[in-house]
């Protein structure tokens, strides 16, 4: 249903995302993981045509038979909120502070052709569907009267309103309290159609998704079914991520990936991870291809 091939995102001369390819089938749930600065959000924003000013995408991305990259905004905006939707990381600022919640939910439906009164009624139903208590009352509230978790539910209601085929969630629970996170994840898992779920929390991916893409330095370095990738990681970066997320006995040092993510444009040539990789050799100065069918990885010295 969604097919991405050779997606590259640039800001002026700096390449932020390089040659990313993946596909999501109908109803499939795919996680996109990696540290901050790996290019996850830019990948998602380029699919929605919402890249910030001065940042441009090239390559191919197609939703059904519609091109998403390299088309004018007038063509892609009719898909947004209808065929594909997105929930963002920060619920506190994502809603218009001057507009009632119900009107903001209804807007996404009237925009795509539903009559106003129908949209109003359906907005209340949607608020109920994302398990907001007293939906009729919430519809009349302003965003500042709701908590972060409630606002994120409103965002989810907006995203689901037109029953899109693809839902993109960009760290939807990162800004929420831990107790609220779990409810939110369960809700997303329950209501989502096909899902592209961005996070840096591996446990979250494991609970929601079937397949995972690991991004680092603007590239997909490993991809495959969750179970395989998480139990038998091949790329050294994935291995490092998993090691860092495991529970460790009290008093022992948490294993971490040495160094930190370089700023955009400062990744090394060849394998982008080689300056932080304990296994790096001169061979890594040549960029490895992403190889493999179901479980693919781009590494000269894969773990076994």
């Amino acid at each position, binding site marked *: 249903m969604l097919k991405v091939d050779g997606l590259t995102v640039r800001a002026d001369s700096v390449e932020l995302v390089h040659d990313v390819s993946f596909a999501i089938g109908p109803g499939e749930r795919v996680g996109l993981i990696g540290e901050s600065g790996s290019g996850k959000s830019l990948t998602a924003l380029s699919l929605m045509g*919402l890249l910030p000013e001065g940042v441009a995408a090239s390559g191919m991305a197609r939703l059904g038979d519609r091109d998403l990259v390299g088309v004018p905004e007038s063509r892609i905006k009719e898909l947004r*909120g209808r065929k594909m939707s997105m929930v*963002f990381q920060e619920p506190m*600022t994502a809603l*218009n*502070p001057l507009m009632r919640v119900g009107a903001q939910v209804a807007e996404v439906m009237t*925009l795509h052709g539903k009559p106003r009164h129908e949209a109003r009624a359906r907005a209340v139903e949607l608020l109920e569907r994302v398990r907001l208590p007293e939906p009729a009352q919430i519809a009349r509230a302003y965003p500042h009267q709701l908590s972060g978790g409630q606002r994120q539910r409103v965002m989810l209601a907006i995203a689901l309103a037109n029953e899109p085929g693809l839902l993109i969630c960009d760290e939807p629970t990162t800004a929420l309290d831990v107790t609220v996170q779990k409810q939110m994840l369960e809700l997303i898992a329950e209501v989502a159609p096909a899902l592209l779920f961005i996070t840096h929390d591996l446990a979250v991916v494991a609970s929601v998704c079937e397949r995972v893409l690991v991004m680092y330095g603007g590239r997909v370095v490993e991809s495959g079914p969750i179970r395989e990738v998480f139990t038998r990681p091949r790329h050294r970066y994935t291995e490092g991520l998993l090691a860092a997320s495991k529970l460790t006995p009290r008093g022992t040092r948490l294993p971490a990936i040495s160094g930190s993510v370089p700023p955009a444009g400062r990744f090394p040539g060849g394998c982008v991870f080689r300056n932080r990789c304990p296994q790096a050799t001169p061979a890594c100065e040549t960029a490895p291809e992403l190889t493999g069918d179901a479980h693919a990885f781009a590494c000269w010295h894969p773990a076994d």
Partner: protein
Amino acid sequence: MTLYLVKRLAVLLASTAVAAVVVFAFMALLPGDPAEIALGVNATPEAVAELRRQFGTDRAPVAQFLDWAGGLLQGDFGTSYVTSAPIGPQIGDRLGVTAVLVLGGMILAVVIAVPLGTFAAVHHRNALGAVISAASQLGIAIPAFLAGILLVFVFAVQAQALPSGGYVPISENPAEWLRSLLLPWLSLGLVQGAVLTRYVRSAVLDVMREDYLRTARAKGRGSTGALWRHGLRNASIPVVTVLGLQLATLLIGAVVVERVFVVPGLGDLLLNGVAQRDLLLVQGVVMVLVAAVLLINFVVDVAYHLLDPRLR
């Protein structure tokens, strides 16, 4: 909202009362005795004392204040010591002229600034946006009276298209009335419009970076549609603050512009009052100007509450 309105109204009344005390006290502190001014240097002390008794200026200041303030409440500003004419009707006549001048200038400023500022924000990355920015910077540097003189030079002296000054009441000749006000409006409006353009531009730029605009686009709006539907009202909140301040500035600016264009407004009346040492008249005009500024602030605060549900 009603409770807020009542509270804010109480604050307005209280601050107006305080303003009345301050205005009265300042005028009382000024040197110069109305009776001595009226009778001239050769008057006998007995005659001066007699006139003081007539004016009531021989009484204690508190009694004089209560008398004056009590009169204000009934719209009575007292009788001029100099011309013996009642002051209230004069202020009433002039207030209308000044209000038309100031409001016209303000409307012109808004009409210039909102589209231009929004345009400059949307096009902030290209040359046209930069040109608007630079032009508004230039406008800020020019004071209203200078703009007035330049406008007179171009439109009245060179082009001979508009009168260089004077005022025709609307009841006499509406077309001439409009012609006589055009240049004063322009000189007030262009300068304030330039200032306002910059504020509108920065408010719209701020709003354009907001997450909720991205949300609106994610719903299926284009960037222009998102800005119209969700951006402009949010941007108007900081702009309203500036508008209120500008309206007060315009009121003061009108004093000068009325001089340049010989428009018989409050400013003209005030300056005449000062020249003739007509203290009670000056006191009345200053009180009206202060009250107008307080009223503007009140309206701005109420407008905030209407615009922003977070304040309710």
